[in-house]
């Protein structure tokens, strides 16, 4: 692999992993506090899956540069994290969490479906593995969007609010990182342009069928993964507090 391509791939894998870690972190805040026992269990499943995906992506990066996944997760600060802003947003209410998970799952499913054809076999293999879980996630979160959208006036209102808030943020999922065009040219990762078109088409249809209105003005759309919300710093402070508590500790 050419050095430039390799660097780009390392950066891309990092964004994939960072998104999953931070999303899983936000979802994990629900454990023990869900609206009903069964849903507590359900969201904890999705959360474990996403965290598992992060471990896989960091693992692929490790194969390329030998970096330690736990060092990456627990010893990088907000300047160094490359997650998108959508996943950093506080968990909000159940509608906010379910909608974010739906928007992300739909993006991830589409991305993985295409990534199964990656010319980089480890990535293709990981995509084939993960997509099975994402298919289930998508079924689950689709069902939730439909039910909250068509449930009560209150649930529809809360879901609509979440959509108005998140729609612009969600667009960042389709902003390529610097150097991504090299990876696309080599067939290592899918081109985000056609994926975005499919995502928009499927999300719009499902959201509208669920009685929601797509925001006319999508609002703020983050474009650089080097910038973050004001929430990331404190999220990381909490998440990394134990790991950083004893700098001598080699294993946890």
């Amino acid at each position, binding site marked *: 692999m050419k050095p430039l391509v390799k660097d780009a791939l390392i950066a891309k894998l990092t964004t994939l992993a960072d998104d999953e*870690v931070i999303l*899983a*972190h936000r979802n*994990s*805040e629900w*454990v*023990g*506090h*869900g*609206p*009903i*026992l*069964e*849903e*507590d*269990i359900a969201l*904890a*499943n999705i*959360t*474990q899956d996403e*965290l*598992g995906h*992060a*471990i896989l992506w*960091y693992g692929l990066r490790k194969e390329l540069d030998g970096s330690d*996944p*736990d060092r990456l*997760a*627990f010893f990088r600060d907000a300047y160094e994290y490359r997650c998108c802003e959508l996943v950093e947003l506080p968990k909000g*209410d*159940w509608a906010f969490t379910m909608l974010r998970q739906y928007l992300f799952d739909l993006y991830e499913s589409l991305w993985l479906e295409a990534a199964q054809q990656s010319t980089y076999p480890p990535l293709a293999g990981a995509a084939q593995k993960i997509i099975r879980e994402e298919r289930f996630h998508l079924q689950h979160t689709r069902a939730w969007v*439909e*039910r*909250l959208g*068509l*449930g*009560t006036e*209150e*649930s529809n209102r*809360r879901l609509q609010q979440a959509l108005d808030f998140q729609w612009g943020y969600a667009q960042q999922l389709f902003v390529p990182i610097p150097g991504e065009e090299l990876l696309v040219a080599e067939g290592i990762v899918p081109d985000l342009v056609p994926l975005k078109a499919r995502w928009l088409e499927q999300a719009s249809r499902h959201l509208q069928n669920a009685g929601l209105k797509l925001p006319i003005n999508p609002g703020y759309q983050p474009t650089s993964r080097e910038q973050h919300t004001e929430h990331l710093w404190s999220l990381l402070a*909490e*998440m990394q*507090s*134990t*790991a950083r*508590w*004893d700098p*001598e*500790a*080699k*294993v*946890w």
Partner: protein
Amino acid sequence: MPGRYGVPTDPDYQERLAEFEARIRRGEKIEPGDWMPEEYRRQLIRMISQHAHSEVVGMLPEGAWITRAPSLKRKLILIAKVQDEAGHGQYLYHAAETLGVRREEMLEALLSGRAKYSSIFNYPTLTWADIGTIGWLVDGAAIKNQTMLAQCSYGPYSRAMVRICAEETFHHKQGKEMVLLYAHGTPKQRAMAQDAINRWWWPALMMLGPHDKDSPNTEVLVRWGIKTKTNDQVRQEFINEHAPEILAAGLSIPDPELRYDEKSGNWLHGPINWEEFWQVVGGNGPMNKERLEARRRAHAEGAWVREALQAYAARQQRAVAV
């Protein structure tokens, strides 16, 4: 098909009771629909629902550390573990439901503060090492109890326990692995592990319940095969397994009187502070108020979600009917 619950004033009560107890002695499982004494049902509902509440409240002290787990793997394990506790609550409420009580009623009893749950969850989790220690000691104590309850004469409770035991063994092992790792880790890790053992040892002994002589329900529970061992027996098994392992790891146990008794083969412990136990059971533990408040908040904040799905389901049904 519930409703076949006998009371002593029934004309055939003695006869049926004798048949019922004979079935239990033969090792048969009592299933929903079978005749049973109303008192058997009452005791089961009390025990199973308390047990379910304990699992659900038990998610909180450990759940609080998911966001601070120090490695990706530990975080994954802890989410799975706390999730299992929700599952255990879920299985147990189901077992109680087969006796004709609804989950709404049981939850209402918990949230209103009427129902009891295990005293241990009213202690705070102060450091990360508490997570390993809870897995090793608290789940270790729970397994002793649950292994016994898996033999229980009531089919649904027994089945829930078999399922739970299988999952609980994972909890116990991950906790033990963690504490042993820290016991041999850096000075800070070792100190943290020791501090956690110091704080959880006695509450773990207490959670197995009062001494037999102070446990009024034990006799009838044993006769009807709901319990097959007494609190003191289970506690002794727990100490015999865990005390030598903790010591072998180079950690100490906060009981100056603890010693191995050659004659009986048991590890004998010093006096338990039952005053503290009853204070915690009575609502005055360090975390009683916070735990209940957290449950109430989750329930209240989930109300609109539960309503929304019901409204959706009702709409679907109407659509089918038309």
